[in-house]
């Protein structure tokens, strides 16, 4: 024993060290995503018709116009929504995720479409995503799937 305390540097595992530091803006966005997600899940749980749920989520009294082009904002928010909701468990993930993005875009005065598609082989699979001017803001269905509805 030397009787001397030595400050030791704690080295974080690489994965943890690489995570970006949360900024107030990011935290605010993540909070908005989670609150909107809870609202969308509640609406889906009440088994209301999807067009009604969409109408409710799109109804924003005073939207705050985005400063950037709509598609750029949509793509960015799409990534944020996906990243924030990826650890959240629950069914109908793609639909709930899409509803969250529709609402967040509406709050910024940006119109968007909810697209639903399905495929039947090799097994039945349905998928939902959001588009703006034909650009997918969330991962679309695979090319085998066919569109059922655009709302």
């Amino acid at each position, binding site marked *: 024993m030397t009787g001397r305390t030595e400050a030791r540097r704690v080295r974080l595992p690489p994965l943890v060290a690489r995570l970006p530091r949360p900024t107030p803006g990011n935290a605010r966005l993540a909070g908005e995503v989670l609150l909107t997600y809870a609202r969308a899940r509640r609406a*889906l749980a009440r*088994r209301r*018709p*999807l*067009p009604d749920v969409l109408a409710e989520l799109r109804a924003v009294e005073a939207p705050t116009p985005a400063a950037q082009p709509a598609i750029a904002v949509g793509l960015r928010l799409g990534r944020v929504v996906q990243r924030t909701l990826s650890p959240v468990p629950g069914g109908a993930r793609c639909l709930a995720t899409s509803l969250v993005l529709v609402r967040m875009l509406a709050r910024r005065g940006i119109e968007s479409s909810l697209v*639903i598609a*399905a*495929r*039947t*082989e090799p097994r*039945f699979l*349905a998928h939902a995503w959001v588009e703006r001017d034909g650009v997918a803001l969330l991962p679309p269905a695979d090319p085998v799937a*066919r*569109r*059922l*509805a655009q*709302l």
Partner: protein
Amino acid sequence: MPPYAPTLLDARVSVPQHVVHRSFAAETVVLNLETGRYHGLNHSAGRMLVALERHGAVRAAAAEVAAEFDRPVDEIERDLCELCGQLSERGLLEVDDGED
């Protein structure tokens, strides 16, 4: 006695706005947007749904489907009426048979 109301043959039918459908190689997928439920129709039923939507009347749709599948009209009418009942029960088809 037929298992369906005779008036059904003369009924007007329509696919509601909240119902969308798409034909695939082996089946037709029908989505009821009000319930969020997906339904699968085999090839024949899918063709019948398309005919029903196009003609808006069971009897006319039956004639088209019977010609296409080369089957007796009365047999197709029976199948079509049964299908109408099943679709109607699930909210996938609106049937107006003129009765209150």
